[in-house]
């Protein structure tokens, strides 16, 4: 009969997960920040996503993809609860951003529906393939095409105004 693990050690992280966490944490926070366009909640949402990965660590074939899905979904849920409140993500150097003319584009990105923004972030920030974006968002590849096209059309319209 298998002896139960002592309670104090049952949920200690295995070295591999701790290493995965340390390596992936900065990228996860940034992805959550870009998806929500809110740096204030990025760490909380990234943490929630890691907490989804941890209990399944032994059974997950592709932890990077699993983590990505968890982040996208955590941000979607947060976005839905947040309803219509929208803020623009602060840039590292606002002066430089203004010089680069990012203000209007950043506003337009922040105003996009969540799935459209997620498609853009996953494509243009993470450089994911269409099939990977579809897996992360939970839609079909054809829908990714549509989401991306609509988002770009909306941005173009806003930026050109």
């Amino acid at each position: 009969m298998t002896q139960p693990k002592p309670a104090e050690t049952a949920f200690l992280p295995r070295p591999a997960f701790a290493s995965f966490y340390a390596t992936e944490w900065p990228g996860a926070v940034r992805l959550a920040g870009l998806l929500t366009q809110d740096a204030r909640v990025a760490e909380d949402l990234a943490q929630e996503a890691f907490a989804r990965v941890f209990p399944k660590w032994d059974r997950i074939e592709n932890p990077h993809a699993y983590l990505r899905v968890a982040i996208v979904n955590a941000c979607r849920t947060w976005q839905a609860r947040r309803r219509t409140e929208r803020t623009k993500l602060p840039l590292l150097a606002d002066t430089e951003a203004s010089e680069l003319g990012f203000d209007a584009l950043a506003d337009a990105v922040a105003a996009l529906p969540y799935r459209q923004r997620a498609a853009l972030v996953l494509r243009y920030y993470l450089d994911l393939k269409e099939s990977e974006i579809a897996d992360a968002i939970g839609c079909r590849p054809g829908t990714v095409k549509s989401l991306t096209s609509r988002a770009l059309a909306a941005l173009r319209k806003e930026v050109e105004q």
Partner: protein
Amino acid sequence: MRQSTDDDLETRLRELFEHQAVGIGGNGRAWHDAPMVADELEPRRRPRARAAAIAAIAVAASVLLVIGIVATAPAPARDAVTVGGQPGSSVPLHFATEQVRFDASALKIAANGRTFTAAGSQVDVNSDPGYATYQTLELGWHEHGVAMRLYFYFAADAHDWWVSSLTTYNGHAEPDSIEYRGPFFRTPLGSAYTGDVDLVPAEAPGAHLRIANMRLQPFLPPPLCNTQTGAYAIESNDGAQISLDAPGSVFDDTVTLYDRARCRPVSTPGRFIYQFTSSTRGVVSVQGEGCDPSGLPAGYCDTHTYVSLMAQGPGRATMHVEAIDVRTLAVVARLDVPVTAKR
């Protein structure tokens, strides 16, 4: 000109996201510092990846069928079939979805020095229903201890369909795709391509794809042509049922009007307009949004009209869709789509 504009915008988006990402930070943190207790989280909610997969499968409305092949184990939790070549099987490989049928007597994918046949494997079978000029057949399985895929990407015009490209995995533990660039198998719509396939990719030395006695037909007539009555039928492209998240969440659907006699999208889309209404506005509001062709694939707006649904409160409702002939103002087709909004 359009390409140049798109490229500029895409470049600026990349730059914007890079700047924003730097601003977000995300300083190093160790798992032991994490402010949470892992074991308490497990029972709270269903795993999100699984939920996403279930939703994707449901929305895709894909069907798994095997003719002449017998599943050797109890039905697995996920959609999959066992590929065998059992005694008496007239067609060793048969995969069908609502959109695509594929039959063949043998499949051989050479990649990373190995040959993949899918024999004895549990194969996931899905299609992206796409639209009038785009569909997929997506086969995925594990063999030799690694993941393998065979994806067909279909295209069509008013007369023919063809495979625009095929992809497989490269046979590595961390897989990447091998692309076989088409066009291949140009065939009149409504007909199947039959023949042997022997392809070598342009950029993967040693790889090849062979399919014996393949019979392939995408763009199968949708079931709605049999389930609806009248001269026209409406399809909700994002599922026969729509599930919304918490109040405030938005879901974009598209609808397509079919000429039932041909079971193809109507050839004169400008003759029709759509009216969308919600049975219960306290649960879901609906707003028709037409179709702006900017940036969309050519012809997409000929077959797609957008409707945006926003959850207002938890409950069930119905989205009523009516197609109206602008010449007579008569309603020529109706469709009711059940909608569920979560808390």
